[in-house]
C-alpha cells in the first residue's frame, strides 16, 4: 500500500514535470518545421513511385502531410493583392481551387528532386510570445545547400505556414509577379481562367 502511493506520487510528479515540456514542444516553431519536413522527406524516400514522379501519389502525400499545415487562404490573398477583397465569395473559391492545384504541382515537381537530402533547421531567433515568425532551414545533400525558410503564424496551439522561401525567393512574391499581368489586364476572372488552362495542360502532359 505504502509502496503503491509512493509509485503513484512519483508518476504524478513525473507527469507534472513533463507536461510543461510537452506543451513547450507543441508550441516551438522550429520543432514544428523539423517534424513536417522530416515527415515529408521520409515519406518520399520510402516510396519509389513518388521518386519516379507518380502524380497521384505525390498529390496524396502533399494533401495529407503538407496542406493541413498551410494557411492557404492567406497565401492566396497576399499573392492576389488588393483585388482579393473586392472579389465575390464564388470568385475566391474558384481562385483557391486553381491556385491550390498549381501549388501542389509546383510542390510535386520539387519533391521528385528529393533523393538523399536532409533538412537542417536552424536555431530559432524569436521571442517566445511572437505570433508570426520566420524559421530558417537548409536542405543538405549532394552539392550546395539550398536555403528553405518558412513564415509561420500561430494557429491555436500550433503553427501554420503562410509563405515559403526557396533559395532567397518567397513563394508569395513569386506568384505576385506571375499574377500581376493578368490581374491588371482582365481582373481576377482572367487570372482564374489562365490558371485553369495551365492546370489543364499540366494534367494532360502528365497523363
Amino acid at each position: 500500500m505504502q509502496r503503491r502511493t509512493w509509485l503513484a506520487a512519483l508518476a504524478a510528479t513525473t507527469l507534472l514535470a513533463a507536461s510543461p515540456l510537452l506543451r513547450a514542444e507543441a508550441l516551438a516553431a522550429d520543432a514544428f518545421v523539423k517534424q513536417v519536413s522530416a515527415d515529408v522527406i521520409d515519406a518520399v524516400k520510402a516510396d519509389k513511385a513518388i521518386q519516379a514522379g507518380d502524380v497521384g501519389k505525390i498529390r496524396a502525400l502533399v494533401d495529407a502531410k503538407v496542406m493541413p499545415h498551410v494557411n492557404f487562404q492567406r497565401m492566396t490573398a497576399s499573392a492576389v493583392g488588393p483585388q482579393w477583397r473586392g472579389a465575390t465569395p464564388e470568385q475566391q473559391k474558384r481562385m483557391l481551387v486553381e491556385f491550390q492545384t498549381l501549388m501542389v504541382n509546383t510542390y510535386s515537381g520539387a519533391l521528385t528532386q528529393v533523393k538523399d537530402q536532409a533538412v537542417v533547421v536552424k536555431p530559432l531567433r524569436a521571442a517566445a510570445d511572437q505570433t508570426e515568425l520566420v524559421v530558417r532551414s537548409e536542405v543538405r545533400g549532394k552539392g550546395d545547400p539550398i536555403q528553405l525558410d518558412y513564415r509561420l503564424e500561430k494557429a491555436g496551439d500550433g503553427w501554420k505556414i503562410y509563405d515559403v522561401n526557396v533559395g532567397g525567393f518567397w513563394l508569395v512574391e513569386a506568384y505576385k509577379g506571375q499574377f500581376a499581368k493578368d490581374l491588371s489586364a482582365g481582373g481576377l476572372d482572367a487570372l482564374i481562367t489562365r490558371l485553369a488552362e495551365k492546370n489543364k495542360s499540366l494534367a494532360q502532359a502528365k497523363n
Partner: protein
Amino acid sequence: MSRRLLLAGALGLTLGLTGCATTPPGDVARGDPWERMNRQTFAFNEAVDAAAIKPAAQLYRALVPGLVRQGVGNVFGNIGDAWTTVNLFLQAKPAAGLNMGMRTLVNSLLGVGGVFDVAEEAGLDRFTSEDLGQTFGFWGIQSGPYLVLPLLGPSTLRDTAARALEVNDSPVGRVWHEPRDRNPAQALQLLDTRANLLGASRVFDEVALDKYVLMRDAFLSRRRSLIYDGEPPEDGANSPLPFKKALGPAR
C-alpha cells in the same frame, strides 16, 4: 589589373549614385527599364538552350559516368571556393574567409586539385558562394537595371561589370590563362551547370505563367538575399546597407 579594377570601381560608384535616386539603399531595383531588349535576349537564349545547350547537357549526363561528372563539378566548385575566399576577405569577413580558404587548400592538396571533395568529409562544407558582384553589392553599390546577357542569362548592370572583371582576374582566368584553354573550360563548366539544373528547370517551366518574369524576379530576389547572406531586411525603404548590417553592433 589595377586599372581595370579602378574602372569598375568608378563604374560601380556611378551606378551607386544614380541608383540612389530611384531605389532605397540596399534594395533591388524594381521595375525593368530594359524589358524589351531583355525579352528579346531571353527568347534568343531559350531558343539556343532548347536547340543546343539542353540536349548537350542531357547527352553529357547520359554518356559521362556519374563519378566523372562529380569530379568535374568538384573541380569547378573548388575554383569557385578560391574565388569565394578572395571575396570574403574583400567583404571584411576574415573568419569565413579563413574557413573557406582552408577548405580550398585541403581540396586542392589532398583532393588532387579539387577532383575529390575531401574537405566536405572533414566537416568543412561549402557554406557560401561569393562573387565580385556580391562584394560590390555588399559595399552598397546598387544593382542597376536587370540585364539578360546572351548565353549567360540573368544579370544586372553591376553584376555584368563585375563579371567582365572576373573573366581575367578570377581563379578560372588564372588557372586557364590562354583563351584557347579557357573557352573549352568555360564550355565544360556551362555543361556541368546545365546538367545539374535539368531537373529544376523542368519544374520552373511547368509552373511559370510568364517564364521571363519568373526568372527575373527569382534572380533579383536571390541576388539580394545572397548579398545579405540569406537574411535580407523586410522593409525595403529603411533597410540598412549590407555591410552596415553585417558589421554593425547588432552582431
